[in-house]
C-alpha cells in the first residue's frame, strides 16, 4: 500500500474504505478479509465481493452470519469471508 499508483492498489484503497461500515461486526468480518483473502480471488469472485458491498448493512450481516442464504452468485464469496472469520 506504500505506492498506490497502480490500478490494483487504487482498487484496494477504494475497497478498504467501502468496507468501513456502520457495524463493528461487519468491520471485523470484511476488513481482515480484504487484507487476507481479496488478493486470491478470481475476477468473478472479486466482482461478487463488490456486489456484496452494495447491500445494506443488516442484509450483509445476515448473509455473513449465515442467517439468510446468499443468492447463488454471492455464495462462494460469502463462504470465503465466513471461513476467515476469527
Amino acid at each position, binding site marked *: *500500500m*506504500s*505506492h*498506490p*499508483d497502480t490500478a490494483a492498489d*487504487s482498487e484496494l*484503497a*477504494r475497497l*478498504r*474504505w467501502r468496507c*468501513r*461500515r*456502520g*457495524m*463493528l*461486526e*461487519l*468491520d*471485523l*468480518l470484511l*476488513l481482515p478479509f480484504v487484507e487476507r483473502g481479496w488478493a486470491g480471488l478470481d475476477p468473478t469472485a472479486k466482482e461478487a465481493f463488490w456486489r456484496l458491498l452494495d447491500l*445494506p*448493512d*443488516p442484509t450483509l*450481516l*445476515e448473509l*455473513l*452470519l*449465515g*442467517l439468510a442464504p446468499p443468492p447463488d452468485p454471492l455464495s462462494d464469496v460469502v463462504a470465503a469471508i*465466513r471461513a476467515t*472469520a*476469527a
Partner: protein
Amino acid sequence: MSGLERRRFDALVIGAGGAGLRAALSLARADAHVAVVSKVFPTRSHTVAAQGGINAALANVTADNWHWHMYDTVKGSDFLGDQDAIEYMCRAAAHLVVELEHAGIPFSRLPDGRIYQRPFGGQSQNFGGAQAARTCAAADRTGHALLHTLYQQNLRARTHFFDEYFAIDLLRDEQGYILGALVLEIETGELLVIEAKSTLIATGGAGQLFRTNTNAHINTGDGLAMVLRAGIPLEDMEFFQFHPTGIAGKGMLISEGVRGEGGYLVNGAGERFMERYAPKAHDLASRDVVSRAIYQEVAEGRGCGAQRDHVLLKLEHLGEEVIAKRLPGIREMVQTFLHVDPLHHPIPVYPTAHYTMGGIPTNRHGQVVVPLGAGEETIPGLYAIGECACVSVHGANRLGGNSLLDIVVFGRAAGNHIIEFLKEQRTHRPLPPESLERALERLQRWDRRGEGESVDGLRRALQETMERHCGVFRSEAVLLEGLSKVREIRDRLAHAILKDHSRIFNTARIEALELENLVELGIATLVSALGRTESRGAHSRIDYPERDDRHWLKHSLYYLEGERLEFKPVRLKPISVDTIPPAERVY
C-alpha cells in the same frame, strides 16, 4: 488557496446518522438549502447498529407516562442530566414514535396491532416501582429502519449529499460565528470549502478510543475534536458508558434485550451475582451498575474461563424458539465469532466501551453554548446533536433506548431552531482567509516527507492505554499514568510521517486525521476523569468511591487551550414539573 472550490448552503450538516438526517429533513422540508457531509455512505452510519429500540411512554404493555420516563432518565443519569432537556425529550417521545410509525418504520406489534414494547434496564413504573416496558423496536433493525427511512425522505426533500467527504475543520470569523467547514473528497483527494449560514455537527461518538468497544471503526469523534480546535470546550467527557455484555475479547455487543427476555449472568462459581449488586432489578439494573459488578467479580477472582477474565451470559433456558423470535441473530453471531452455540453454551462477556455521554455542550434547541459570566452564550451559527452533543439528557449514564430517542427529538428541535435562525441570518458572512489557512495547515502537515514513525501502531497504543488507564474503574495514579502515556502518543503522532502521499482514496491520510481527533479526545477524557474526584454513573473512582453532590453536582468543561477544566451547574429545574431531587441510586 483562492483556487479552492467553494459551495454555499443555508445549512451544513456534518454527519449522516439518524440525528443529522432528522435535522436535515426538517430543514429541507422548510425549503432551506441543505448540505449533508458524511465520510461513509449515509445508510452505513453507526445508527444502523442500534438494535435495541426507542423509548416512549406509550403504555401499550405496562402502565406508563412521560413523567415516569423522566424520573428514570434523571435517576439513570445519576442526577447529572439537565432536567429541562430530559423533560422536553420524554414529553416529545410518544409523538415522535407515532411520527416514525407514520413514516413507515415497521415496529414490532402486539396481537391487537399496537406497537410492542419490551422492558429494558432502568425502566420503572410509578417513580421507581415495578419494571416498565417502554422500548419500541422494529425487530432488531430499529436503527436501520430509522436511518433508511430518513435517508429516503431526505432524498425526496432534495437534501444535497456529499457522500465520502471528510470534514477537516470548522471555519469561523473573529466574532466567533461558525461559517461552515473545509472538507475533503475521499475519492479524489480534492478539497471543498462549504460556506454555510448555520453548521450542525452530528458526527456521533468516539468509541474507538478504547480497545474493546462496540463501535464501528468510523466512530472516531471527529466533530468533537473539531469543536475543541475551534476553542469551544467539551462537556462531561469523563462519562463514557461501558456496556456490560460485550463478547469477551472482541467487543461486539450482546443486546440488553437478551436480559430483557430472561437471560442472566453467572460468575465462575455459577452464582447469579447480580442479585447481590441490585437486589431488586438483578440483571436489568442500569448499565454502569452491571458493568461494575462484572468488573468486580473478575477483579476479585470470580471470573470464568482459563484466565478467569470474563463472566457468562446464560440464555440456554430460553429455548430455541424464543431466541430465534425475540433475539434474532444473537445465536448466529456467537457461532460466527466464537464458534460455539449459545443454545448449549453460555456466552463469555465483559464490559465493552459503548457510548460517549459527554460531548459538545448544547441547550435543548441544539445550539452550542459556552459559559459567559454567570450564564451562557450561544456560538452563533453552530449546533450539535446526537451522541457527539451533551444536551445533557444522559448525564453520567445513558439508559438503553434513550439514544435513538435523543437523536430524533433533538434532531427535530435543532432543525426547527435553525429554520428560525435562517430567517434572521439572510446572508453569508464573509469568510476570513486566516480561518481557511488554519484548516488547510491541519491537512498539509501530513504532506511532509522524510524519516519518521508510521501512524499504524499508534491507534492501537492509544486504545490500549485508554482501556487500561481510563476504563470501568479509575484512580488518580492510574489516570495520571494514562495521561502521560497519551501525551507521549500525541508527541509521536506530531512527528509521524505518511508513506503514501497519493490523492485517490488515500485512506492512510484519513486514518491519520482520525487518530489526531481521537488523541485529543483521549486527553480530554483523562483530564476530565482526573478532575472529578467522586464516583457518579459511569465514572467510577476507586479513590473517591462515593457520589459527592455537595461538590460535584456540576458539569465539567474541558478546554484544549491549557488542557484546563471549568465547571457549570446542572440544570435541576425542569420545564413544567418539580425538580427530581438527587437521591441514592438503588436498583
